[in-house]
């Protein structure tokens, strides 16, 4: 890891603690460790000393942490053994009460997962991506051209949120003037009221998501009676596998598509700039050879790992990294840790924009639940950097970022920057 606080007392204390505390006390689920960006030391210790690690705490209960690339690959590709289904616990370390669990296709097993996923996946088919490229480029250019010069502004708000929210609005054909609602619902959906207080309670969270459902139900009703169009709502309303969804499944899938298309790319857009700021040699390499954007994009996504974990539930006893997982156990794949695993990725703790195999990272997951929008995400980030390099020789990061208090979303709330005139 190369935390923002490297060299600070906080980082040194965390490193000392991570490597001295008894293994059974290590708890990599603590959101604070992600916000302080000291989590990497604890993962480093686990990869070295106890790669498949068991821990129990009051908030999340009993769970396994899988920290090595190859073990994560095993879990991710063994969907017959490790279930994603919401009825078994779903895909996040936090387990809501059964009646509150979101029913979305990422939280379903075969065959229903496959059927629902295929209802929306054509939106990112190669030909569709190609047709979106010009729109994304012109919007990106406009957002960048309107940035202030010689004054400090928030990169998260002005660039990352703005671009990803516009993208989402397009994918849903969502009323453009209301698009900020999508950002809000995305934040609410991934919030953990007890931890981050984005909303004050689980009830408040569900009430907000209910508003999201009501809004989208209006769009559904408009589109279900109209000829099929190439937007996510119309696709869901017309596809045989999804047109008879319950409202709960519709809401679940909306949340999935909103978060999947928003938080992730947003945080990679910020994380990429911050990584280049921390690695000026790489920034210089990029300026000298803008063609490196191509290999830098997957490296940014590896480096950021915007979703640090996915969770599964064992459907049967299984061996994993020398440990015996029991039927019913909660198994957490820490993609962020696997993406720093030296056994799988050379110089894994360094940000290197011209790696030979930059796409061999875990950030999109592997197996049947692999990110549907991976190539769209890459395209958005590629276009952003191509357009930045045409305009700004320098973007100064003028303060430390503030990070999200979460173990599910690894992201930023603010990054102060300044572009010299």
């Amino acid at each position, binding site marked *: 890891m190369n935390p923002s606080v490297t060299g600070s007392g906080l980082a040194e204390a965390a490193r000392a603690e991570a490597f001295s505390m008894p293994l059974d006390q290590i708890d990599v689920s603590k959101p604070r460790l992600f916000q302080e960006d000291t989590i990497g030391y604890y993962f480093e210790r686990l990869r070295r000393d106890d790669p498949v690690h068991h821990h129990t705490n009051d908030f999340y209960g009993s769970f396994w942490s899988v920290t090595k690339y190859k073990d994560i*690959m095993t879990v*991710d*590709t063994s969907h017959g053994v490790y279930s994603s289904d919401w009825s078994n616990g779903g895909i996040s370390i936090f387990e809501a009460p059964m009646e509150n669990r979101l029913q979305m296709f990422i939280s379903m097993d075969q065959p229903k997962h496959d059927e629902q996923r295929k209802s929306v996946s054509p939106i990112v088919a190669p030909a569709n991506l190609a047709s979106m490229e010009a729109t994304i480029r012109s919007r990106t250019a406009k957002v960048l051209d309107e940035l202030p010069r010689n004054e400090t502004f928030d990169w998260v708000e002005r660039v990352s949120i703005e671009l990803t929210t516009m993208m989402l609005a397009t994918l849903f054909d969502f009323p453009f003037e209301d698009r900020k609602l999508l950002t809000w619902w995305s934040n609410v959906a991934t919030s953990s009221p007890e931890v981050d207080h984005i909303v004050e309670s689980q009830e408040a969270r569900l009430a907000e998501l209910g508003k999201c459902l009501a809004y989208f139900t209006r769009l559904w009703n408009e589109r279900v009676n109209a000829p099929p169009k190439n937007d996510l709502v119309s696709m869901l309303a017309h596809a045989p596998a999804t047109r008879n969804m319950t409202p709960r499944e519709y809401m679940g899938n909306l949340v999935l598509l909103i978060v999947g298309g928003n938080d992730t790319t947003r945080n990679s857009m910020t994380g990429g700039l911050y990584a280049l700021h921390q690695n000026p040699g790489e920034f210089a390499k990029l300026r000298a050879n803008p063609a490196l954007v191509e290999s830098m994009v997957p490296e940014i996504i590896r480096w950021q790992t915007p979703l640090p974990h996915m969770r599964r539930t064992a459907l049967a006893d299984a061996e994993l990294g020398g440990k015996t997982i029991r039927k019913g156990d909660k198994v957490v794949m820490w993609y962020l840790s696997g993406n720093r695993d030296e056994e799988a990725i050379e110089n894994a703790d360094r940000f290197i924009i011209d790696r030979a195999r930059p796409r061999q990272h875990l950030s999109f997951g*592997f197996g*049947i639940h692999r990110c549907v929008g991976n190539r769209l995400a890459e395209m958005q980030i590629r276009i952003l950097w191509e357009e930045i390099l045409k305009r700004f020789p320098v973007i100064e990061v003028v303060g430390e970022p503030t990070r999200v208090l979460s173990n599910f979303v690894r992201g930023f709330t603010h990054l102060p920057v300044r572009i010299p005139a």
Partner: protein
Amino acid sequence: MPKVTFIEFNGARHEVEAESGLSLMRAAVDNGVPGIDADCGGQCACATCHVYVDAAWEAKLSAPSEMEADMLSFAATKQPNSRLSCQITINESLDGIVVSMPEGQH
């Protein structure tokens, strides 16, 4: 060594020598053939080494595993002769095989 031919979506042909025992995907990646991404490195876990197998060669290949079929089923560009090239092992009987690439790898 067996020769294999990859045809890019734009029609560009690449004939390379492929080592028996290695996968068709490796032959592409090791020879710098564009259009095969192979994000998972050959684990049958991503479907980004997707190829269409020329009709004459389909019968010479063993049937796809369930996992391969699952991964391919999510590819918008899937056709009846779609395969993941990481799951095709080169041997002498495949000398001369021709495969083409989809518009994009997902």
